[in-house]
């Protein structure tokens, strides 16, 4: 039973295309996150949703748009893909979003390659 799942695992696409990455958690958690890990393994928060509401929106191009249809899903849509978007994108969730105590559970990642 996968706690946090992402699809697809690999995504190879051309510049300029629009693509989506899906994330689902079956842990009953209230808060979900998207992180981007670059080629140097640096992991940076992009977005956070708590009960379907946007909490964190870091300095991310507005080509990236998260969508949370319900609290178990947080999808990431990317418009007009650029070479610099190539990275591994991780979805994560936590029980309440109380960062002082909560553990975050990560999905397996989606490796996006933009050609």
């Amino acid at each position: 039973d996968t706690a946090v799942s992402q699809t697809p695992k690999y995504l190879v696409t051309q510049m300029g295309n629009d693509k989506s990455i899906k994330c689902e958690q079956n842990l009953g958690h209230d808060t979900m996150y998207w992180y981007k890990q670059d080629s140097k393994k640096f992991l940076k928060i992009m977005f956070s949703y708590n009960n379907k509401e946007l909490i964190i929106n870091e300095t991310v191009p507005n080509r990236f748009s998260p969508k949370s249809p319900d609290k178990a899903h947080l999808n990431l849509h990317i418009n007009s893909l650029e070479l610099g978007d190539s990275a591994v994108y991780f979805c994560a969730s936590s029980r309440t979003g109380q960062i002082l105590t909560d553990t975050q559970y990560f999905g397996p990642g989606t490796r996006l390659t933009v050609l």
Partner: protein
Amino acid sequence: SQQGEEDPQALSIQEGENATMNCSYKTSINNLQWYRQNSGRGLVHLILIRSNEREKHSGRLRVTLDTSKKSSSLLITASRAADTASYFCATVHSNSGYALNFGKGTSLLVTP
């Protein structure tokens, strides 16, 4: 910036040896967490240490925190080949909202 920085960037040891990784950060924190990432996988939470704690243990893991030096260390005792992974520290600051601030990680290789 707020993110932690791990040291060393890469570490290679033999099975049975201890591995020590360090993390330094710049601003005051509420807590600090260590995560492990196996190749091609997501991150797995290892341990959380609060700013008022100095040491924490979990199995073969020992984490220390020195807030005066703004640093933490992760010690893995009696390492095994299965410990081969990247290890990240992540800090939580009072003004960081719900976000973890990750460092760049230490790549640990444990050879049989």
